[in-house]
């Protein structure tokens, strides 16, 4: 089972738009809430009201500051959860077979009842996408909401990951990245979606859309200044105004 199924035809995953993510953490909490109540053991919290609170989260939003060689620094909010890699090292290292990648859609899951909590899969993941739950001692990770996306107890429109459903700015997209005609694949093609740490050879399914270019510096053209003045002062303006008004419909005075 820790053998990878080989390239799956269907590659369900997320596309995250770094141009749009405002860093609100909504996806972080809706993920925590859904996955605490659903798939497997709850995501526990240690010292939740104490000096050093910490807990299990399957999705976390970082932020980075990027300083271009020229111009102002930019800030990029950066959500990160499991990328459901095609060559998932977290799966092959697992000694128990608890970690596996689904044949039918490529989702990488942990079968908690087989997990011994050795942590090796988390070591193998370059992205920090797996967290060992401190209370239950089993490995937790993004399930791509496998218990939502096919769930017949949910209305059809809700069969998408909790984080995608909740994202206020629409920065998260869910779909089949194995299908070149899917909306997500088109988005990736249009916007130049990229992989995180491609050199790690994990072949992530999730893609990131880069921030659009920012802070276009104004270029002044001496011959055609931004706005041609029509007057220099109030008086001149009134003169212009009278002319302009008479040009408006019904304006002959």
């Amino acid at each position: 089972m820790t053998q990878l199924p080989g390239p799956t035809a269907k590659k369900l995953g997320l596309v995250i738009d770094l141009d749009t993510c405002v860093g609100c953490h909504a996806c972080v909490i809706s993920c925590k809430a859904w996955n605490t109540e659903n798939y497997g053991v709850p995501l526990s919290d240690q010292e939740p009201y104490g000096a050093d609170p910490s807990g299990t989260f399957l999705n976390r939003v970082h932020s980075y500051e990027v300083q271009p060689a020229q111009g102002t620094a930019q800030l990029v909010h950066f959500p990160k959860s499991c990328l459901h890699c095609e060559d998932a090292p977290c799966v092959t290292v697992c000694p128990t077979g608890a970690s596996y990648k689904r044949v039918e859609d490529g989702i990488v899951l942990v079968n908690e009842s087989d997990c011994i909590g050795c942590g090796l899969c988390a070591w193998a993941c370059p992205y920090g996408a797996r967290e060992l739950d401190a209370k239950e001692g089993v490995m937790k990770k993004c399930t791509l909401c496998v218990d939502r996306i096919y769930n017949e107890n949910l209305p059809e429109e809700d069969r998408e990951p909790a984080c995608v459903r909740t994202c206020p700015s629409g920065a998260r997209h869910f779909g089949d990245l194995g299908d070149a005609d899917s909306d997500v694949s088109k988005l990736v093609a249009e916007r130049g979606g990229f992989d995180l740490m491609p050199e790690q050879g994990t072949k992530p399914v999730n893609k990131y859309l880069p921030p659009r270019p920012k802070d276009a510096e104004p270029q002044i053209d001496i011959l055609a200044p931004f706005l041609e003045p029509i007057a220099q002062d109030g008086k001149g303006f009134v003169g212009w105004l009278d002319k302009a008004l008479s040009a408006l419909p019904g304006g002959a005075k």
Partner: protein
Amino acid sequence: MHPAPSVIIFTTFSGLGFGLLFWLGVGALVPGGLSAFIWFTIAYVAAVGGLLASTFHLGHPERAIKAFSQWQTSWLSREGIAAVATLLIMAFYGAGLVFGGTRFAALGWLGAVGALTTIFTTAMIYAQLRTVPRWHHWTTPALFLTLSLGGGALLGGQVSETIGLLALAGGLQLYAWAMGDKRFQRSGTDMDTATGLGHIGKVRAFEPPHTGTNYLMREFIHVVGRRHAVQLRAIALGLGFVLPVVLLLLPFSHIFAVFAVFSHIAGVLVVRWLFFAQAEHVVGLYYGKR
């Protein structure tokens, strides 16, 4: 990486134990009766104790049996199988020596190969990890093997083998440290590839996702001060390699030998502490900690 006592103890003592089993298996020393019993007890206490220690960091040790199932892909699974197989084989081999006074040489050689395999698979658990560039290198299994064999030889009183192996291991260790310090940088993984934002400019972690700590930070982000590291390396080298060799080069004395063993163990513990504590996991990049 977090230098958890359980993994440090595990790698140190199971290394020694399997190292000693190797020498017993190849027949470098062929004790019998009570003395065989003592030798094997030492080897098993070290090997099994180490293995048991490693289960302390498991969330569900009671399910450990499941860990034998994934030998096709998982080095950890392979290690488990190799370790148990070796221990079983060597148990028969040992029983022969203790009770029958007979050496089943084939069994011994098989056990020795098993011990080597076990040590190698243990090393490969770490060396396979591309996420930890310092480990992802041939020096990791090479060091594990030479250290285990050297330590085993030392335990087993194989003076010249010990001197040779420990000298080799010491050299390898120096090389591994020197290379290891650069390997993260050379791995090709950096802030730019981690975030994909390098084309815009220089990337710096601004705000972490949580102000508190989390499993990833506890497990993967451990920073050892430079000066501290240099001191520890000197201590590790002195205790683990130089001092035992020097003690063995002196005219033989049991006291010296015992000192050499303890010194070596202490040194290896430090080596292993450094092995983990200095291993930078690429996930630290996301936290701006590399």
